């Protein structure tokens, strides 16, 4: 990078880094800096001078030993040396601190010895900032003349000696490792300008970051069209709102139209409407174009072939001109870009990765890192392993990168990978900011035809068994909705046991229905334990204005993963199947025979309705309630609910009979008789209550599936859709198959709506229905930074008999039951909701099994953590 220029009219400052002045005493360093400070080019704080530090440390700038007896001169000289050393030490500490912050620092000292200069070169390299030398080359005569006019002249001998030292050390200066060396013969004639950090740019009207294009020019134009860019009369693609296009690099090589693509980016960057970062292929091609001896491989040879064809068609000269243009363009590409809003870094675009401390700086090391990522490790075959640099990202900017293709954009730890392997037959992705949206275009075909392409490798390894050691002793999961959440080893082990023995295969376990809290506050009404009013109050207090109330079916929770056909399942779950239906704990919902029947019926109905084509999806993932209750819970009902009902009734009938006899015999037991009558009534209400939810089914007749969340189609989850949409979609599904049923719901946006829903709730629960679920209109809602409950259940007064016991409404029972605490349940509801959303999104993005499974296993682990089961 060393480039020596003669003094010229204008000299730019680096935006950050170290400027080392080199020149003997009296060469005008301090004068020059004083002028720049006065002109406002430099801040006073950007200048550090050894003279100033000598004063700061030792109160004097100079100790004069001239004309002293030798013994005295020796001592004074020694003192001066000591003062100088300590002053430099203090100054260099400050230079180092400033460099670590990426600030500009100009060091005002003579720097006549190479070893002094070396210090700053090393320091700058360690801090990844540039180091520049300004050499004040002033004739000896001028120096001597100026010394005479000084307050404290250094003396003729000393000036002469410094001058010859200066001249000597000039010879090797150019090879010392400065990024730039400027020779200033007449500093007063030179203009100095402050340069902006070239890596920084304003987000402006918004930006669209495009993933690795690799010569997929047609797909790129298609994508630009989707993004709303259109060619103007000069052929430049502009967005009507003035958005900026940004490329993560690797626009060429491997694919069919590298030259068109890179020329496109050059023209748009030149026009100031696009930016492109450096990249591994870009750097390789730049070196090739510079005539370096590089071996072209990994598709770079295709670029050379295109150039060859260009030369044949347009002639050698045109080709040479093009090569030179492209060379300069590629060499000028910044290692990364930092997009700011209001001067604050928001988004970083880099090709292969970046460390937090590199953001906004430039150095060889940073350029390498941004081109290749963290390449320290190698795998068993000696191939480099990309280390997960993004796990260390903490500084808050969103980092968008490419380089390492994966089938769907991967959002990890505030970093987003948007290389979806277009050239390998994947897709070309754009990430829109600040909208935070992905737009993508499928590749027309696999151009690279690499049997070991990253996408193929990804797919091959995608379903490999999850790594146990990372999970078994507890771990944390980063979720978009909740951030990081941790699960304890004990609970994880219990979940691993469950997954190893009882659940459907891991590959098919993609969503665990989150638990749901009842109203955080119990009913203020003496006659109720739960009431919708408290749910409304909760959501209103969290700033929710629109809610949806859905009828809660008393059945068994079920997750349905349904595929278009058996073959469609293979790439998702690794085996041909029409789907899976499992319970909230991940176990098969039906016996195998029944499941096959249900799946076949649903599939036939969905295909008949052309569902999969209409929605262009390979799969349908549903969260549902399957009724009747006895379908799944018959054993539980018989051994618990019915058994208790029978025992209670038997007990109370016998006792009532005997107490009536006692009363007839003249005992004073009328109070006891009345009490027993009421209790017998309670027992009968209880017995009636659970029978409401049960009926006989024969085959599939009588089985009803009520979906209330349409979780996902292929490539898309619906967590961003309103609950009204989910309800409407459930209605649509009910029209498709008689196995599906609609769920009643109400939208609440006013006091009147609330009153209406309370009446509705009273009606249906008095009828014996379980109750309702109240949700904010969006899946994930927040109050400020905090996620709020995604749903609150309000169970009916009658239904709660089967939860809180036959006599729960007796005033003294109810009073104590109202002391319940829902804190832990609410916390679990939030965490499980975040995990369930996360696991579905990862599954839909076709992330590796262990990435999906870590969410599912964490949700199962949370379920092993005991919470009051009545809530």
């Amino acid at each position, binding site marked *: 990078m060393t480039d020596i220029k003669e003094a010229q009219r204008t000299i730019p400052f680096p935006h950050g880094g170290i400027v080392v002045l080199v020149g003997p005493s009296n060469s005008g360093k301090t004068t020059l800096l004083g002028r720049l400070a006065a002109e406002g080019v430099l801040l006073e704080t950007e200048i550090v001078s050894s003279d100033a530090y000598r004063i700061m440390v030792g109160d004097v700038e100079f100790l004069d030993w001239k004309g002293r007896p030798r013994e005295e001169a020796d001592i004074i000289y020694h003192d001066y040396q000591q003062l100088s050393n300590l002053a430099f030490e203090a100054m260099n500490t400050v230079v180092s601190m400033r460099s670590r912050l990426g600030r500009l620092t100009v060091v005002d000292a003579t720097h006549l010895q190479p070893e002094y200069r070396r210090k700053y070169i090393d320091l700058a390299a360690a801090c990844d900032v540039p180091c520049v030398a300004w050499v004040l080359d002033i004739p000896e005569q001028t120096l001597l003349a100026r010394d005479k006019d000084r307050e404290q002249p250094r003396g003729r001998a000393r000036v002469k000696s410094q001058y010859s030292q200066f001249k000597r050390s000039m010879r090797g200066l150019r090879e010392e490792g400065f990024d730039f060396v400027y020779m200033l013969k007449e500093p007063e004639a030179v203009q100095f300008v402050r340069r902006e950090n070239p890596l920084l740019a304003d987000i402006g009207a918004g930006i669209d970051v495009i993933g690795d294009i690799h010569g997929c020019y047609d797909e790129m134009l298609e994508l630009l069209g989707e993004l709303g860019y259109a060619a103007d009369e000069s052929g430049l693609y502009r967005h009507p709102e003035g958005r900026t296009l940004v490329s993560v690099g690797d626009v060429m090589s491997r694919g069919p139209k590298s030259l068109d693509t890179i020329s496109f980016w050059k023209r748009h960057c030149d026009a100031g409407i696009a930016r492109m970062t450096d990249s591994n292929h870009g750097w390789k091609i730049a070196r090739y174009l510079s005539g370096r001896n590089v071996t072209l491989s990994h598709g770079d040879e295709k670029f050379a072939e295109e150039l060859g064809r260009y030369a044949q068609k347009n002639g050698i000269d045109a080709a040479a001109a093009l090569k030179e243009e492209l060379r300069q363009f590629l060499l000028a590409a910044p290692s990364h870009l930092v997009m700011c809003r209001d001067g604050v870094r928001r988004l970083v675009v880099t090709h292969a990765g970046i460390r937090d401390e590199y953001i906004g700086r430039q150095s060889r090391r940073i350029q390498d890192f941004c081109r290749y990522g963290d390449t320290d490790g190698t795998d068993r075959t000696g191939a480099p392993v990309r280390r997960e640099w993004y796990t260390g990202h903490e500084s808050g900017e969103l980092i968008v990168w490419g380089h390492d293709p994966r089938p769907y954009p991967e959002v990890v730890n505030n970093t987003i990978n948007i290389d979806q392997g277009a050239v390998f037959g994947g897709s070309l992705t754009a990430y829109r900011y600040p909208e935070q949206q992905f737009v993508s275009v499928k590749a027309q075909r696999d151009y690279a035809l690499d049997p070991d392409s990253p996408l193929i490798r990804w797919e091959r390894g995608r379903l*490999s*068994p*999850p*790594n*146990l*050691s990372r*999970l*078994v002793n507890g771990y944390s999961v980063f979720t978009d909705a909740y951030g990081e959440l941790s699960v304890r080893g004990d609970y994880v082990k*219990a979940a*691993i*046991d469950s*997954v*190893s*023995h009882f659940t459907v*295969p891991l590959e098919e376990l993609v969503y665990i229905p989150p638990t749901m809290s009842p109203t955080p506050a119990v009913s203020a009404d003496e006659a109720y334990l739960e009431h919708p009013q408290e749910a409304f109050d909760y959501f209103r207090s969290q700033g929710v204005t629109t809610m949806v109330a859905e009828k809660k079916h008393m059945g068994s929770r079920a997750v349905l993963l349904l595929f278009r056909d058996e073959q469609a399942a293979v790439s998702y779950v690794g*085996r041909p199947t029409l789907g899976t239906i499992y319970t909230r704990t991940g176990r098969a919902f039906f016996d195998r025979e029944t499941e096959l029947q249900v799946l076949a019926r649903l599939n036939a109905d969905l295909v008949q309705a052309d569902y999969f084509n209409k929605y262009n999806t390979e799969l349908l993932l549903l969260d549902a309630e399957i009724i*009747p209750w*006895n379908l799944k819970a*018959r054993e*539980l*009902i*018989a*051994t*618990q*609910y*019915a*058994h*208790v009902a*029978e*025992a*209670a009734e*038997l*007990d109370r009938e*016998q*006792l009532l009979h*005997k*107490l009536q*006899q*006692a009363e007839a*015999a003249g*005992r*004073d*037991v009328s109070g*006891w008789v009345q009490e027993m009558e009421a209790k017998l009534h309670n027992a009968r209400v209880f017995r009636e209550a659970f*029978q409401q939810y*049960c*009926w*006989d089914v024969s085959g599939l007749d009588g089985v009803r599936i009520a979906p209330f969340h349409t979780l996902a189609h292929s490539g898309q989850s619906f967590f961003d859709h309103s609950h009204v949409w989910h309800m409407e979609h459930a209605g649509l599904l009910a029209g498709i198959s008689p196995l599906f049923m609609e769920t009643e719901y109400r939208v609440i946006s006013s006091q009147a709506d609330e009153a209406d829903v309370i009446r509705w709730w009273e009606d249906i629960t008095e009828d014996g229905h379980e109750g309702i679920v109240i949700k904010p209109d969006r899946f994930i809602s927040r109050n400020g930074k905090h996620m709020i409950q995604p749903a609150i259940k309000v169970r009916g007064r009658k239904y709660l008999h*089967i*939860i809180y*016991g*036959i*006599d*729960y409404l007796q005033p003294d*029972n109810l009073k*104590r*039951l109202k002391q319940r605490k829902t804190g832990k349940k609410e916390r679990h509801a939030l965490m499980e909701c975040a995990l369930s959303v996360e696991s579905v999104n990862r599954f839909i993005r076709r992330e590796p099994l262990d990435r999906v499974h870590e969410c599912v296993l964490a949700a199962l682990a949370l379920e092993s953590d*005991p919470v009051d*089961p*009545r809530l």
Partner: protein
Amino acid sequence: MHLIIRASGAGAGMLSHLLAKNPNNLYDRTEKDARVRIVFISSSEEETEAVIYVTPDPVELVKGDSQAHNDITQYINDREFVTSSLFCTYIRGALGTALNGKPKEAYVPWVKEPLQLELSFGPVASNLPDRTVEELFTALGYEVSIERGDAEYSFDLKTRSSARYIRLNGRQTLQTALQQLFVLIPALDDYKHYYISDDEVDKIRRYGAGWLEQHPQRGLILRRTLRFAGAIRQYEEAAAKELRSAAEMPASASAAEVPVPGVSNGPAEEELKEPRVRLNDLRYAAIARTVEELAAKASIVDFGSGEGKLSARLSTVPGVREIKAVEPSAASQLRALDRFAKLEGRAGTVMPEPVTGSLFYFDESLRGKDVMILCEVIEHIEEYRLDRVMDNILREYSPKTLIVTTPNKDYNAVYGMEEEQIRHNDHRFEWGREAFSAWCGRWARNYGYTAELTGIGELSEAFGYPTQMAVFKKGEHL
């Protein structure tokens, strides 16, 4: 929960005196968060009838019951209604005088006087069949009638109620009758509410005096009341001592023979459709022999090690230095830990290391071992999941030797099983010799192993061995 005592005929009027209750008053006390009430329906010389009933506090009842904590049905709890040890605890105070046979001086002679009694109690929640319930009381000279609750539901749920009501008729002293109920009500019930303490053993001895030792169902009663082997042993020792001192007979050694219910049917235990115990031992022996003969056997992975029997068996094989017993179930692992602890310090024995894991996960620490064993494991995995499991084992773990055992379906004929029957409910499949051989051949070819097939157990000419064993060895050329 209630008990109705009706005395009739001669001495019936003594009932209230023996209970030390004034029949004209209502008895209403609170005992341990439960309301205990007694009312007399009649009290004449010919007939006296007392109703004793308890109303526990349903909210207090489930507090502090940590085991039931995670069960939603805890509040839907029959404990509030059925007669159980809890019931006996609640009414012990109210019936203390009668139980201890210590009425007022004037009525002491009546303590030893049998009365014509009708004892009605319930509801009873018991898994014992009616026949056994009847036997428990007919052996004591009662006539027994059993009623059941109402099992009519709007949908098909059950054929009869699980709540029973028991009525006994017989001549018995009130004290003995109550003592019998205080032993047999908890014995009938499926659940005990407290830990079995020394007091409990003592109580059974006191209440059982004079009738329990001769009861034909003595063993059953002890098992169901004391529940734990230690307590039963303690009871037996005390009984034997008494017997000895009474008849100067030598002590019997039967104490340790008492079966311990509730411990023998762990989830890993197979059903006894085959002579399981012997075959298990034979399998372990065959695997141990195979391992012994291997050149490389220093490190062993026992997958699905369950309670650690095979790992313990292999721990003494010379040349073995490391055994990883991999098992996902924490309950099984705890039992394995007990088993392994007994090996500690024995010469020439390697302590197996319990590892949480299963075939559906990848565990770096199991790579490249000498021997990996899947003993009766694969048949518990859905057939369609086996491919990925085997890929994981042979490609990633890549053991020098892999030993797989699985039932031989052909052999089921020898057990007289139907074609579609399987040996264990959790078996997802069972393979005949041909199927297993083809499967082994395929995997051996895929990953450059040799596969040698043998059998374990008693050979049948027509059907082969009951258990099939395959020994895969990594090809020398690889």
